[in-house]
């Protein structure tokens, strides 16, 4: 057999209509994008198999042989630190009959050996050996060099490693664009950068992955209402969000909604030590980031790197929304802190996130309920025909002296959500990366 390239995108999905599914200009979203199998199948091809997907932070894999398993869309991958000291990402599926190769979610290995017939792969995914190799003697189409585990490109930004299965995709640097300037608020507010705390809390939600992703990209509107019970339990009142001192900012579909209140998110962690640390460092942050960005370090905010890496400054949590079907999502939650922060703060952040933004957290437990019900109602065909309104802040775009990207006044806004869906529609409607505009 020759190396036949199978065109996987040729299907009966109305690709031309990608633009109609999202009317970003007027703020209307077609509900079918949260429900239909064919649209979901196209997402796996045109979003997840094409974009840069977060796979690991440097601190999770400090030594050669350290690995973890994850997914890019529904493609299972192994992420490992190779003999060359670099991070590699490749499919977790044997080249022989396709068996899953690695079953641990984290660990240390020298080889990844398949349970089925014993093919054994190196830390970079290359095929190192097979059992009974003499059985392949004189076999011209058995070329070990061609039989490694299929690799993804891996590039990183300040310790955050992303993988991409599309050779034609732009570099990570271009993909993130000026959003890197915002990411520095957490990745580079201190010269030591960040480190991840050991462990990863995983949970399943019966929702479409876009509902939580859009929630983090811009929805501060829901916070005082959905999370009223948690806010009252902790503070006895709602937080103050000030439209004149808060923003939406987005670049290429990545977005951050934020105030400049410095500690609004951090304050919910129930830890005076964390607040004290932030206060002590405030001048240092300002020196490194400038005054405006320094005020974002622990502020009331939320953000998402397109498509599915969300985070909360101040709470110090990263999370990914891994699609498992049009109405099923696996949430992975990590906690990080500045590598130079006092070690006692590790437990403070870890326990603070557990109390607030983990499946048992008093904030997050109300989110899952909303995301699931926003999804499941679309089983109704008439329901599905009704468009969703995402029209808040249509005229709120501003020019700002310092803030980069597309900037909008007030964090109570839906500008970032519209930018997220616009990027989604750009990718869904594009045959190749060449057709995807910079936003």
């Amino acid at each position, binding site marked *: 057999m020759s190396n036949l390239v199978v065109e996987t995108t040729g299907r009966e999905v109305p690709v031309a209509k990608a633009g109609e599914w999202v009317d970003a200009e007027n703020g209307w979203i077609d509900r079918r994008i949260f429900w239909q199998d064919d649209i979901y199948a196209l997402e796996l091809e045109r979003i997840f198999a094409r974009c840069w997907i977060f796979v690991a932070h440097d601190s999770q894999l400090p030594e050669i042989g350290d690995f973890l398993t994850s997914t890019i869309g529904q493609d299972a991958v192994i992420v490992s630190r190779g003999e060359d000291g670099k991070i590699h990402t490749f499919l977790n599926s044997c080249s022989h009959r396709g068996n899953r190769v690695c*079953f641990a979610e*984290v660990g240390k290995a020298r080889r990844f050996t398949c349970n089925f017939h014993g093919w054994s792969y190196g830390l970079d995914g290359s095929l190192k050996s097979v059992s009974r190799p003499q059985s392949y003697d004189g076999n011209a189409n058995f070329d070990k060099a061609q039989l490694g585990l299929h690799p993804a490109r891996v590039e990183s930004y300040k310790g955050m490693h992303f993988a991409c299965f599309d050779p034609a995709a732009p570099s990570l640097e271009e993909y993130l664009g000026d959003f890197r300037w915002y990411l520095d608020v957490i990745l580079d507010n201190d010269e030591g950068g960040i480190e991840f705390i050991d462990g*990863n*809390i995983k949970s399943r939600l019966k929702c479409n992955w876009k509902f939580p992703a859009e929630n983090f990209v811009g929805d501060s509107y829901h916070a005082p209402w959905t999370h009223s019970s948690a806010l009252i339990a902790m503070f006895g009142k709602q937080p103050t969000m000030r439209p004149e001192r808060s923003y939406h900012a987005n670049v290429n579909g990545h977005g951050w909604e934020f105030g400049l209140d410095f500690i609004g998110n951090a304050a919910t962690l*129930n830890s005076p030590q964390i607040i004290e640390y932030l206060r002590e460092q405030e001048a240092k942050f300002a020196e490194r980031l400038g005054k405006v960005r320094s005020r974002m370090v622990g502020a009331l905010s939320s953000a998402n790197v397109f498509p599915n890496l969300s985070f909360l400054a101040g709470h110090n949590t990263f999370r990914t929304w891994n699609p498992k079907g049009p109405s099923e999502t696996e949430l992975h939650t990590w906690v990080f802190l500045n590598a130079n922060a006092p070690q006692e703060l590790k437990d403070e952040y870890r*326990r603070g996130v*557990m109390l607030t933004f983990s499946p*048992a957290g008093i904030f997050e437990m109300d989110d899952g309920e909303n995301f699931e019900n926003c999804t499941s109602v679309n089983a109704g065909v008439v329901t599905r025909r009704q468009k969703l309104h995402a029209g808040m802040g249509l005229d709120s775009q501003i020019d700002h002296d310092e803030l980069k990207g597309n900037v909008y006044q007030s964090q109570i806004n839906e500008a970032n959500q519209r930018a997220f869906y616009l990027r989604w529609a750009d990718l869904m409607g594009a045959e190749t990366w060449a057709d995807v505009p910079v936003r």
Partner: protein
Amino acid sequence: MNQSDQIASCDNPAVPIVLLLEIQQFLYREARLLDGEQYDEWLELLADDIHYWVPGVQARYRKDDAKFSVGRMAFFDDNLEYLKIRVARAKQPSAWAEDPPTRHFHLVGNIEVEKTENPAEWTVHSLILSNRHRTEDDEMEIKARRVDLVRRDQDGSLKLARRKVILQQTVLQSKNINTFL
């Protein structure tokens, strides 16, 4: 060495059957209070120095580290103060998602009581099945292995002093844990 290894290795003659029954009743009553969302009464069963721990469980190779460990990410790693904050949230009328309420069901089984060095404290092993229903068809089930430290208080009542909950699932198959296990 983890806590359960230590227990298995020390000398543990059987506890009196009356005490066994008393501890069983204590756990059953606790389960009923949780089912009824009687959280203030539930808090009364806890010792002031309670450590309530539900670590995240990881699928790791046998030769590798423990599947859970101190300092790693967890669902709960709480003292009494943290537990009280969680209860305060559950009791807010604006916990919209709790109205209509979740229908809770805690099944406790395989209860085994062991003596410890301290005559007023016992290690208690049990299995827990937490089943929750919401709306018409939303069902979530969590199964776990528990190791408790139960203490006889000064006033003669039993208190829960430590609880370690080892989940069966490495990926929690529910959107949240709006209960205690």
